[in-house]
């Protein structure tokens, strides 16, 4: 169970010491006789989020034996005396090593732990720590056992036995049993490799230099890093949320709230010693346009995750994605994981040979969605400002910017690059209230903080 908890942690679930202690207590109460109760007991104490349920199920099956054990049948049990004689003679003619193994398969003996260990060593299972390699490594171990040669040897054996006069039905039965036992061996291998990988995952030290990944520029991020970044976003969003909420609470600066003042001052005999103000509705309304072309994809996705996590701090968001035209994506984002939402959007607008065209997207926006921007909205564009020499439609941008309360631009490129190539940043910059540069996750989180701070 300790290994199991370690593997859960390695997979990204945060299981505390107290929770694992509770898991042990729960196991004591539920007992280990009934697999289902055991599983439910562990699940209630260890998993605290719906999104972690699938991972829990996979690892539970690996560690605590999902499904029935592979079935082995002994094919040599019920041979008649004559058949046994023939078999003994036929054995002589087959290669020694193969013969032993074939005999074992036919007899229905499972692979022994020592053999499994040995094969694991040869295949490098000791270093594997990714569940995606489970099938591949099981296959490689299978190759060590030389299943193909065993098949040939079996055919040879059957041929010999047929020559010696064994009944056809008997031979067919032998072949069937062989097939079934080989499948069971393969299952054993798969299970073993999965178990070993999960254990390795637990043993693995946590990926160090979390600081480094927070400062890695978006252009240099691999898929694996993205996984980590998504987790970081959740953590950072939690920190931001408390900060933003506190800021809003402290910043009450509206009119005097008479009812609340009186109530608070009852203990002072209704002498207004403490004054209470009615607070302005400080939560911003946002309209966000995200560039989802390949260069900007990771930055946009992380930005959307932030907004998704912080949506209780924002009064109303309208989210749009654009490459060469505009798509309204708020409905995609409301319930689901941001990554799935972005993937869904990208399925609708595949990038690649499309060139980013902010001008056309702004035209779409002005044509259909201009009413979402009013004097209390913050208008945000997430993009690098590179329009592939298309018309930047500065006039539309100016129109929208003046209509909104505040307009912000979020770019991953530093100011030095704003005049290079096809970048129109220099022309957009005077039209917006502020340009925020966010090249890595730390900067992105401070940009989000700033975004939700001011009025």
């Amino acid at each position, binding site marked *: 169970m300790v290994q199991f908890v370690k593997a859960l942690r390695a997979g990204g679930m945060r299981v505390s010491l107290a929770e694992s202690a509770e898991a042990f207590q729960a196991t004591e109460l539920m007992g280990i006789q009934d697999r*289902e109760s055991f599983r*439910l007991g562990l699940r209630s104490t260890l*998993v605290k989020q*719906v999104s972690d349920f699938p991972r829990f199920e996979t690892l539970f099956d690996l560690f605590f034996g999902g499904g029935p054990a592979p079935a082995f049948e002994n094919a040599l049990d019920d041979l008649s005396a004559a058949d046994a004689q023939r078999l003994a003679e036929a054995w002589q003619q087959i290669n020694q090593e193969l013969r032993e193994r074939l005999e074992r398969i036919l007899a229905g003996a499972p692979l022994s732990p020592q053999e499994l260990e040995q094969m694991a060593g040869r295949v490098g299972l000791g270093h594997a720590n990714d569940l995606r390699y489970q099938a591949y490594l099981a296959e490689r171990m299978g190759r060590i056992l030389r299943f193909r040669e065993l098949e040939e040897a079996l055919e040879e054996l059957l041929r010999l036995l047929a020559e010696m006069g064994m009944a056809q039905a008997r031979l067919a039965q032998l072949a069937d049993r062989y097939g079934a036992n080989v499948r069971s061996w393969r299952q054993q291998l798969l299970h073993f490799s999965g178990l070993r990988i999960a254990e390795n995952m637990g043993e693995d030290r946590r990926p160090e230099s979390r600081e480094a990944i927070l400062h890695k520029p978006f252009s240099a991020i691999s898929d694996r890093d993205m996984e980590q970044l998504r987790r970081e976003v959740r953590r950072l969003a939690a920190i931001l949320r408390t900060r933003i909420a506190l800021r809003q609470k402290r910043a009450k600066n509206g009119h005097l709230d008479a009812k609340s003042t009186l109530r608070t001052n009852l203990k002072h005999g209704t002498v207004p010693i403490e004054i209470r103000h009615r607070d302005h509705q400080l939560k911003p309304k946002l309209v966000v346009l995200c560039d989802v072309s390949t260069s900007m994809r990771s930055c946009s996705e992380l930005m959307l995750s932030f907004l998704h996590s912080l949506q*209780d701090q924002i009064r109303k968001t309208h989210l749009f994605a654009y490459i060469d035209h505009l798509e309204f994506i708020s409905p995609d984002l409301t319930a689901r994981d941001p990554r799935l939402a972005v993937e869904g959007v990208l399925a609708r607008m595949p990038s690649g040979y499309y060139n980013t065209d902010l001008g056309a997207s702004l035209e779409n926006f002005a044509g259909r969605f201009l009413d979402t921007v009013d004097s209390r909205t913050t208008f945000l564009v997430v993009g690098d400002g590179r329009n592939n020499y298309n018309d930047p439609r500065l006039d539309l941008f100016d129109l929208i910017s003046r209509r909104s309360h505040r307009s912000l631009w979020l770019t991953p490129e530093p100011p030095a690059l704003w005049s290079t190539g096809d970048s129109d940043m220099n022309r957009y910059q005077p039209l917006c209230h502020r340009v925020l540069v966010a090249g890595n996750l730390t900067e992105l989180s401070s940009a989000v903080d700033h975004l939700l701070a001011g009025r």
Partner: protein
Amino acid sequence: MDRTGEFLSPQQTIEALGSQRYIAGTGIATVVYLSQQLGKPLLAEGPAGVGKTELAKAIAGATGRELIRLQCYEGLDETKALYEWEYAKQLLYTQLLRDKLEKTLAKSKTLGESADRLAAEEDVFFSMRFLLQRPLLRAILSQNPSVLLIDEIDRADAEFEAFLLEVLSDFQVSIPELGTLSAVHRPIVVLTSNNTRELSEALKRRCLYLFINYPTLEQELAVVHLKVPELSPLLARQAVELVQRLRTLDLRKSPSISETIDWARALVALNAEHLDSQTVETTLNVLLKHESDLERARHRVGLTLPPNRPLGQGAGNLPPPPA
């Protein structure tokens, strides 16, 4: 169920909850049982209307405990959740007891002595008599064992969660004037959340987690049969199948089990015999509460129901009857 009102095993929990007309699966029963045995609060998450609050009520009924409910909302703070002094009452008593006060202080000569005298009587004015107990304090001080339901904790803010952690860990409150008050009986705590935002990790760690999802066909049928027994089994099955199909559509708000029960009652009230497109048309707004959802549902589902007009004239793609 033994007299002390404890659950003895997950199986027995299912029966006990069933006696309160709440159908629970093994998952729910296990978590409820563990929550009681380990003494940990229970965090129930899930879409709106699947029966999280009902679960707390059923637990209260099954264990014979009183249900104390705290409904959370943004801006909920300590005074509204824990306790408050009844200032008005204190002032009133002061006025009414003024004569007695004079007599008590009559014999003292200096101001200091009067103040000391008064301080000795302080606990008259700062006693339990003038303490307005809010749900949390009521749960702590309750003489009988109770079930504390903290409803929709995700609507409260982060500060309230931190405050709640403190209360839930020790079940004791220190009121400056009265001292520390500890719980006589530890209540069973049930927290519910609609998953609108993520709760803080510290709170989640302290609780056992239960996710209640939309029920399966069989489960929903069983619930409808239990709660609305007047509905004919055939109609119930048709209705539940329709609701299950509606859930597969991409709606803004999928109908939950409580809406299914309401719809079943509506069908009973309308004396419907079978599900045809007109009945569904008129009662669909019991199930779906958004206009866009209604449109989509009518479009997708309405076409597949038999019309109540004679064949050949109704809406839908039914072929004309063979000649």
